[in-house]
């Protein structure tokens, strides 16, 4: 298994759940846009599911009240299965509320529900992982004002700055995919992370090569005209 540097987010997940235990307050896991039928959103959603499985198990193990609002029907059924399995794996199926732990909230209606209930329940820890759009600012700022410890991560480049600025811990872009593979402790998954790094090295070499060739006046576009 390739050696990977420890992602700070792994410690952050445990710290956030631990804080919820200390304060006796719930932990929330928000994924925003979870359209399983839109390719650009599907990948981060699947990555968020992988981290959800890990987070739900820790929450179940430590007896923290866990809440996962989901805005799409397909994703709701998958998230429900993941969280229910996590509770069963920890031997606490009775702690899983089939209509309360994972909740379907239509997109649009979710905003006011989440904002109001963050205050009323005084959440102590919130995870913002997945494909985040404009709601990132609304929910992260609200969570910060409530006093929750937050972990945020998305691959939508224009919303990364908001999550990085407002959340206590953040994962940027590709780390969202890496985190899920990292916590799985599966050799194939961690090996694929090493493969991605090789891809990045190749991209780096090509960028340097292309920059040098373009600078000396070599017409690169001719190479690809086929």
């Amino acid at each position, binding site marked *: 298994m390739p050696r990977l540097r420890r992602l700070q987010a792994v410690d952050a997940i445990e710290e956030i759940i631990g804080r919820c235990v200390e304060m006796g307050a719930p932990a929330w896991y928000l994924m925003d846009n979870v359209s399983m039928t839109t390719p650009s959103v599907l990948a981060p959603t699947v990555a968020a599911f992988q981290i959800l499985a890990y987070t739900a198990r820790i929450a179940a193990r430590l007896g923290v009240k866990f809440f996962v609002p989901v805005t799409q029907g397909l994703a709701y059924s998958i998230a*429900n299965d993941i969280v229910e399995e996590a509770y069963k794996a920890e031997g606490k199926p009775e702690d899983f509320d089939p209509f309360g732990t994972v*909740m379907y909230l239509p997109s649009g209606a979710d905003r006011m529900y989440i904002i109001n209930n963050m205050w009323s329940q005084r959440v102590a820890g919130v995870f913002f992982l997945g494909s985040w759009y404009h709601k990132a600012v*609304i929910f992260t700022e609200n969570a910060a004002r409530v006093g929750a410890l937050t972990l945020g991560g998305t691959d939508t*480049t224009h919303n990364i700055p908001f999550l990085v600025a407002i959340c206590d811990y953040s994962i940027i872009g590709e780390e969202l995919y890496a985190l899920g593979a990292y916590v799985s402790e599966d050799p194939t998954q961690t090996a694929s992370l090493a493969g991605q790094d090789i891809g990045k090295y190749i991209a780096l070499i090509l960028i340097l090569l292309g920059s040098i060739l373009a600078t000396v006046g070599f017409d690169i576009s001719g190479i690809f005209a086929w």
Partner: protein
Amino acid sequence: MSERLYKIQLPVYLTALLGILMILEHFFPMPGVVTGFNTTMRSFVTVVSAAALMLGIIFLTIAHVRTISGQKGGWYYSILYIASLLITIAFGLMGVRNETFLWIYNNMTSPIGAALYSLTAFYITSAAYRVFRARNWNAAVLLFCGFIVLAMLIPVGAIILPPVVPIGEWLRSFPSSAGFRGMIMGTSLGVMGLGVRVFAGRQKEHLGVREERMGGE
């Protein structure tokens, strides 16, 4: 047929097969039978999404009915939800272009959606006031760049401070673009890695399953 076969193995094989067909169509000209099959599968996606929407609505309605029957906090809003749902469904079943249905959509649903979208402006100001501080050199650079680009973006900014336009456009076109390009490349590689793991059946969370790693599997 074992539970593992139909819950895990068959879906994994199906995911891999359909995913590979979609990818091949994306990059190479394919025979009509493959294109036709893929088009049919994409139309299935629309049908499945609609069915999943129904599933979500059913679960949400059950949750609200429980709130009403248990007289939990805010149960009267649940009555409002159920009434709104039934009225909208009734007019929607009369026809998607029914006048009353469209009136509900254009005069209630859409303005509410737009109003909720506008919450961003308030929260971003509140966040900026609280967070956007020059605590160290990195934060100071971020603050300066953010200020310049915002001044460039607001219509009157260029009139009040003309230098923000060339500086802001340089920031947007070069350092910002370079950063975004790197991030896009990294994210794209991450997505490819995820795709390979899903097709290889090593990642099954999209099926609602999380299997413990069993040595060597």
